[in-house]
Structures are given as C-alpha cells and as structure tokens.
C-alpha cells in the first residue's frame, strides 16, 4: 500500500475514528486503525466491538492499493505532530512508514485479516434526519443513563421511533430524562431500540465535522439492523450497538397529577444548591427545598450539626411543601437543561418531581426530567 495525503486531511480522518479505539482491551488487534485503499478512496475504521466508526476520503493520491492494521498509539500522535503539508504513507513487509517533510515514523503493523469485519450497510432501509436535532436530543438525555453494569439496558438510551415522532429516554432508576420531537421522516414503522450510550456520544463530534448543506442543515441517514443502529454522516459512518432489553415501562412512572407548579431561574437555583450543599450530609447528599407562595427555602444539615440555608424568589402561589433531594442528581439535571428558566412540578414529599425547561416565550421544548425525592425515614 502506498499513498499521499495532506496532513490536515489525514489528521481529521484519524481524529474521527480514534475515539472508539479502546484504551484497554484483551484483543491487541483492536488497538489498531484499519486502513484500506480501494480504487481512489482511503477508508479508516476503528471498533471496540460495541461501537465502530468508518470514515473515508478521496483527497489522496493513490500509488498502490492495500489493507493494513496500524496500532493507533504512535501513529495518531505522530500525524498530529507533523507540520501541515504532504504526508506519504507506504508499507514494506510488516512495517508502515509515514513521512512528512523530513520527519519519519516506522511502525510494525498487525495482520489486517484479523481485524473484525464490519457489516456493510443495506442502502435500502435508511431514512434521513437532521443530525443537529439528534445531537440535541442525545445531549438532553444521555447524562441520565445508569452506570450500573448489572443493568445493561439502563446503560443505553431508549429510542422510540414512530412515523412522525422520535422519543429518546434515559434513566438510572432514580431519575429519568425524556426528549420528544416531532419528525417528518420516512422511518420504517414503529420501533423501540435500546442504543448503547457510549456509541451515541461520538455523534456530536462526527456531526460537527460534517460539511453543512446549502440550507445550513446536517443531513444524516439512519440505518437499522438487528443488532446495531448506524448513522451515515457524509463520508463517515457510526455503528452503535443495540442492547437487549427490557427497558422499564417509563410511561407508567411519569406523573400526571403533580399539582404544585413553580418556575425558577435555573442559574440562581444551581448557585443556591451549591451554597447549601456545603453542609449536606456526605452519605446521603440530601438537601431540602421548602416551597411556599413566592419563595423557596433551601437548606442542608450535616450529621456534625452544621447547617445552612438559602432563599430564592420563585413564581408560585400554591400550598406549602417540603421535599428532599440528592443534590448531585438535581444539579446534574439542571446543568443539562439548556434554557434559562425551569418549571418544577411537585405533588408531595414521596412522589416524583417533574422538571421541564421553559423557553424564552414560555414554550415547551419537548424535554422532561423526572427525579425521585430523598425521603427521611419516619416522614
């Protein structure tokens, strides 16, 4: 294999795929990037067996075709360190040589045949969607996934694909985030999939690297197969593993009878929580919100007797209520809300709280978060 490529182009392609290269793996071949030239295109692939990224470019000068697996460990930092300009890549026996100007890297390659084969896409069943909408929806939900490896399904994001709608849901059994968007697309019927979150987290970077189309959109195409969801974004394809369910029935836990609605400035609430959390009990991370007409009192009491309070103005005229939360969950949700105001809907100290971002004009954003309270025993 032998080709020439501009340094910027080479680095951009490597940067796209290298993120899935596993840092630790029992299979050494997975530490490689697979490089292949067919015709006048160079394609680069990387996989950790769960998620895979393939990108390709024709901005190269092909001397001879070929297929090699190169450990990413030295290749990627080396290419990044090169000055802009022409880079030539060639192989000799088991070695690859990368030359940019007077700088040269020689590295052993591994057997390309041992690299796990990626399934080609079936072009027929794809459907188009704007990538930025998906990126927003993933950002609105992914923080709420579980990190508990004993419940793999909760480590993924549920995709409810409908004819005119897409719902993304993530939960760790204490909190839940839902993003609902109307879609005008050609989705092939109703489908519920649990998609590996670690894979979806690559999508923002890939979409950001895409060229915009004439209308400023980022058109991407989604392909569904039995065990993966694939995103074709320009010259790059991201394959993400589909996890086995069941996903808990989240519809049943979204409360419909929370009657105490209040609106609060998000930034002020986060700051107030941070202030009182200093005295929160380390084990439970509990803070209390006391709500009454026009004001919210936040307080936290440590087991050592220390205590702190703070107060916020809120728009509320209902019954008073006192409710406890794990403040780390609450801050987590608030930080991931993209609007400046947020509404809280509560019922009582034992029932789930609903948080919704509110747009400047008070419009719904389709995003909904749920948080279970932290209850003192005996209350």
């Amino acid at each position, binding site marked *: 294999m032998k080709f020439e490529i501009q340094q910027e182009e080479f680095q951009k392609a490597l940067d796209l795929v290298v993120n899935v290269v596993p*840092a630790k*793996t029992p299979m*050494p071949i997975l530490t490689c990037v697979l490089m292949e030239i067919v015709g006048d295109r160079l394609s680069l692939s990387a996989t950790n067996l769960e998620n895979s990224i393939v990108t390709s470019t024709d901005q190269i000068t092909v001397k001879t075709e070929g297929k090699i697996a190169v*450990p990413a460990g030295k290749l*990627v930092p080396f290419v990044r360190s090169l000055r802009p300009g022409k880079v030539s890549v060639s192989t000799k026996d088991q070695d690859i040589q990368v030359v940019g100007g007077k700088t040269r890297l020689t590295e052993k390659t591994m057997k390309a045949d041992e690299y796990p084969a990626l399934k080609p896409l079936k072009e027929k069943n794809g459907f188009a969607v704007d990538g930025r909408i998906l990126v927003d929806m993933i950002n609105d939900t992914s923080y709420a996934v579980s990190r508990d490896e004993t419940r793999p399904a909760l480590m993924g994001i549920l995709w409810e694909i409908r004819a005119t709608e897409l719902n993304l849901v993530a939960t760790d059994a204490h909190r839940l985030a839902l993003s609902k968007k109307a879609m005008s697309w050609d989705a092939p019927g109703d489908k519920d999939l649990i998609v590996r979150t670690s894979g979806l987290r690559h999508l923002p970077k890939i979409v950001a690297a895409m060229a915009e189309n004439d209308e400023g959109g980022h058109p991407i195409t989604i392909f569904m197969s039995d065990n993966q969801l694939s995103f074709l974004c320009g010259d790059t394809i991201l394959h993400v593993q589909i996890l086995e369910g069941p996903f808990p029935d989240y519809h049943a836990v979204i409360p419909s009878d929370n009657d105490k609605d209040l609106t609060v400035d998000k930034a002020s609430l986060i700051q107030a929580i941070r202030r009182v959390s200093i005295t929160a009990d380390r084990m439970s991370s509990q803070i209390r919100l006391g709500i009454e007409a026009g004001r919210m009192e936040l307080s936290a009491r440590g087991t050592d007797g220390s205590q702190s309070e703070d107060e916020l103005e809120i728009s509320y005229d209902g019954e008073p209520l006192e409710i406890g939360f794990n403040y780390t969950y609450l801050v987590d949700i608030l930080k991931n809300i993209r609007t400046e105001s947020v509404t809280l809907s509560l019922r009582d100290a034992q029932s*789930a709280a609903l948080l919704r971002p509110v747009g400047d004009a008070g419009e719904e954003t389709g995003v909904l978060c749920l948080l279970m309270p*932290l209850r003192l025993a005996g209350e």
Partner: protein
Amino acid sequence: MQPQSETSRIQLLDDATIDRIAAGEVIERPSSVIKELVENALDAGAERITVKIEDGGLTSLSVEDDGFGIPFRDLPLAFERHATSKITAAADIMHVGSFGFRGEALASIAAVSRVRCFSRTGDEATGGMIEIEGGEIIRREPAARNRGTTITVEDLFFNTPARRKYMRTAQAEKRAVMKTITRMTLAHRQVRWLVMSGKDTLLDLHPAASLTDRAQDLLGATTVDHLARFSFSKGGFRIRGLASRPTLTRGNREHQFLFINRRPIQSAALSHSIAQAYREVIPAGRYPVVIAFLEVPTGDVDVNVHPAKTEVRLLLEREIFGMLKKSLQEGLSLRAAPELQPWAGPDEAQPGTDGVRQAQDDFLRAHFQRGGSAGYEYRGVPAGQGELFGSKAMQPGGESSLAADSSSTGSESLNSSPFWQLHRTYIVTQIRGGLVLIDQHNSHERILYNEAKRSLGEKGLAVPTQQLLFPSHLDLTPGQIQAWQNHADQLAAMGFSIEPFGGQSVLVQGLPASVRNWNEGQLLLDILDDLAWDGDPAQEDRRDLLASFACHGAIRAGEPLTVPEMQNLVDQLFATDSPLSCPHGRPTLIQFSLAELEKRFGRI
C-alpha cells in the same frame, strides 16, 4: 494428657460405650439426626414426610412418613448396630442405590437420646411402638398407627454432656436443619414435604412436576427467572440441573446444591469447578446459584468415606470436575455472550471521570511501565494523547480537557491532597508525615455499619430513603420471608422501604440513600439470606444485620472510583469513631510514615 495409672489395663469396651462413641461419628447435631431419619423415610418409599422440630431440634424432633413401615417383631432389631435391610454383604457397598446402608444410624441415635418409634407395615393389622432411652429398651407394645413410621427423638445427647455442650444456639441448629431439608426437597420432588418448628410452618411443599417448580418454591420466582438448564452426558455419567446466568449471583455458596446420585454432597473440588466455570464472568466474592445432579455409575463413587456420607470420594474426580465445568459453560453460554467478555476497564462510556482516571493511569504508566499488572498495562491510545502528559491532566480532580461533560457534580472544590486508586481496590493518599493505603471495601463497610447503627440507635438520626423510580419487585424464599418479618422494623429504620406484595413477594419502594450496590434487590436478598431462619432479633442479631448490610452494601474491590468519590470515602472514614478497622475487625488502612520511607531509602 494424664499418664495412665498402673491399674488401668487394656480391656474391651462395653457395648453402650461403643455405641456412644460411634454415635458421635454419625450424629453430630439435630440436623444429622434429621438427615438420617429422612433418608430412612425415603428408602421406605415415603410419599409424604413431615418433620417437626422444637428449639432447633435440641429439645425434640420427629420425622413422620407413610412408607413401608417396620414390622412389630423387627422393631428392637432396627435399633441394633449394623442392622440394616439395605445390604447383606461387604461387596454390596460399592453398588448401593439406597441412602442408608451402614446400619448404624438408628442405633447411634438411640444411644444418645430418648427415642420413640411408632410404625406399622401394610400387612399388619395394628402397628407397634418402642421406646428406647440411652440405648436401653424401656417399653415395647402394640399401638395403633396408619401405615408408615414416626420416630421422635428427644433430649439429644442427654447422656453425653460434653457433646451437648457443643450444640450451638437453637437458632443455629434450626438453620442447619433447614439447610439439610432444603437439599433433600430438591432431590426428592415427588414427596409432599411439611416442616414445622413449634407452631410455625417453615416449609409446605407439594410434589413438584419439575426441578424448576421446586426451585421456585425454595428460591423464589425472581431467582428462577435467572436460572438456565444445563445438561451433559458422557459414558455412564450424566450431569443436569439449573444454574444462574451471570446476571444473578449470591454473596455466599448457600445456594449451591450438589447431588451425586441424588445424595446431597459437599465437595471442595466440585465447588471449585463451579467457580472456575464462572470465572471472569462474575465478580470475585460472588457465587452463582447452582443446582446440579450428577449421576455416576455406583461403582465409581465411594460414599463410605465418612459415616455422615456428605463427603464422597469420586474415582474419576478430575474427569467429573471437567465435565461439570464444561456443562455449565456450555449450558449457560458463559463464554459466548458479548456482555460476558472479560471487563477491559472503563472505555469511553464514562465521560467526566475518564479524564481523571486517564491521568491516573498515565501517571502509573509513567512510573510502573514495566509492571505486569494488566490493569495498567499500556495498550492503545485514547484521543487527546498530546495533552495527557500536560500539567492540567496530571492534576487529579482538575477539569480535564478530555471530559466532555462532568457527571460528578457538587464536589468540585477539592483540596490539593491527591488520591490515586490502585488496582481498583486500594486508595493511596498523602497524610501529614507519610502516606496511607486504604482498602476501599473495608473502609466503606465501616462507614455503612456506623451509619446504620446510628440510625437504629437514635430516633432523630434515621437514614434518608432514596425513593425508586421503578420499585423493585422481589420474590423471597421462605427463609428470607421469615428474616424480613423478624427484622422489618430495623430495616425500615435503616432506610429500606419494603411493602408486602402478596404471597412470597415484596415491593421495595426506597433504599438507604448511601447504598451503592443495590443490584436490583440483590443486596436485600443477600442480607435476608444471612439472617434466614433466625428467630427474634436479639441484640446480637442486630449486629449480624448491621454487619451483613455493611458488607453487602459496600463498594467492592474492583470497582473504579472517581477522585471526588475517593475523597468522600476517606473523609467519611475518618469521621467515624473507629476508622482503623472494618466491622469484621480487618484493618481499613495501612500507614507508612515518612520516617519509615526515609529509612528504607537510606536517607537516614
């Protein structure tokens, strides 16, 4: 030992003494009496077996069956040593299909207790009874009874006080009895079992059509959902049974049931073979649920190693070892499923913490590059390689440039003291005048223990309960139900919100806020297992409950921790009143003083 006096001469022991010595071999405690009596009942073809115990069987125990019965004229003979209906010559021993054959069980029991036996065979018009005390026949007379045998054993070891002293509490004996009977009910599903302790019904089992049905009675539907069948046969050997997928594990081996030719056995080799089969797919210190029936040609197994027959000697142990392991691995696909691959450490799945951990790993890599520990072996390169050795990433807890969004909020204000996690087990940190190595499991155990103890002791300090979005629905075993009922108040004070949900089920609505390892209810099941069959909670039991909660709820070795988590753990540990040891007495930390280090480096 006292030197023997000159007058003591070698002489033959009288029969009563021989019987008492021999009894100690077969009869160790009430559960071994029950095992012998139930085996006799099974050998007699019983379809219905009722076991009753008082005070764990120490005061009284009885086994009633509807089997063949013993003819009236044979009643005294039944309690003679080496009287048995099961073999007639030594050669038969290697081909025993029945459970008993040594002919010493009844004689041994009768030698050390007060025994009453009522029995009638199908042919007799009336039955008979015999009463024996310390091996002496006291009474023998005709008595009315349905077909079958009832043997009542009272005041076990009344005439061997030394042995009696070794009996444990009634509760411990009851637990041992339940363990013995549970094993037998698994192997004999055709039998209708009833087990009573005083007035309480402990087990009431109808004949079960399949092993799965019986397992459901004993282990609960939740557990059974996680079980898969496995089977294997080769030559005259056959292995079949049920075993849990790696999604379900227990904190001890209590739920591993091994049978050879339907005889419950213990075998370190076979237990080890199970551990080997599950190695790398379940965490260390966790055990799968396994019910395995091995059928081996009767000539290949020697059950006559010990009178109690729970230890067996297998002629082809290594082959059987391999077969069990293979049958489990194949039956449960322990090697095939993708989620069961050896865990290679955190990948890009955890943004926010990776930067920090990466920096840690890099630090260790730089310092221990030749170290053979797989955990820190240098393989591949993540994104952002160029920045990793920069000063920013090297600072633990600093906002790493790799972290897309930080999931660990709230504890941003870290002090400058560094924390490193070694081998995902130990935390290293600097203290004034030296460094400490902290065991993450032991220290979290101490923290949980003290917190739960405080919440039980003082009313105002109840632990907050984190309500669950999806309440956990758990099916309990009979033993777990009893443990829950006995400890309901304490569990509530500790922060568990548990409600009955009909039958053997409960619904868990909330958990102690500090619990890390809920694992869909596994934590509670483990705690209840530890307390199963215990009586009312005394002060001592409360300690058991607390220790069990702390042990099962604590962070395990092997769990990755973020820097804020480590800092939190260390701070909490030093806030407890006894930070230097875990509730079991193991140390939580090891300290190295600067003076010691300086000495070892030859500086002073």
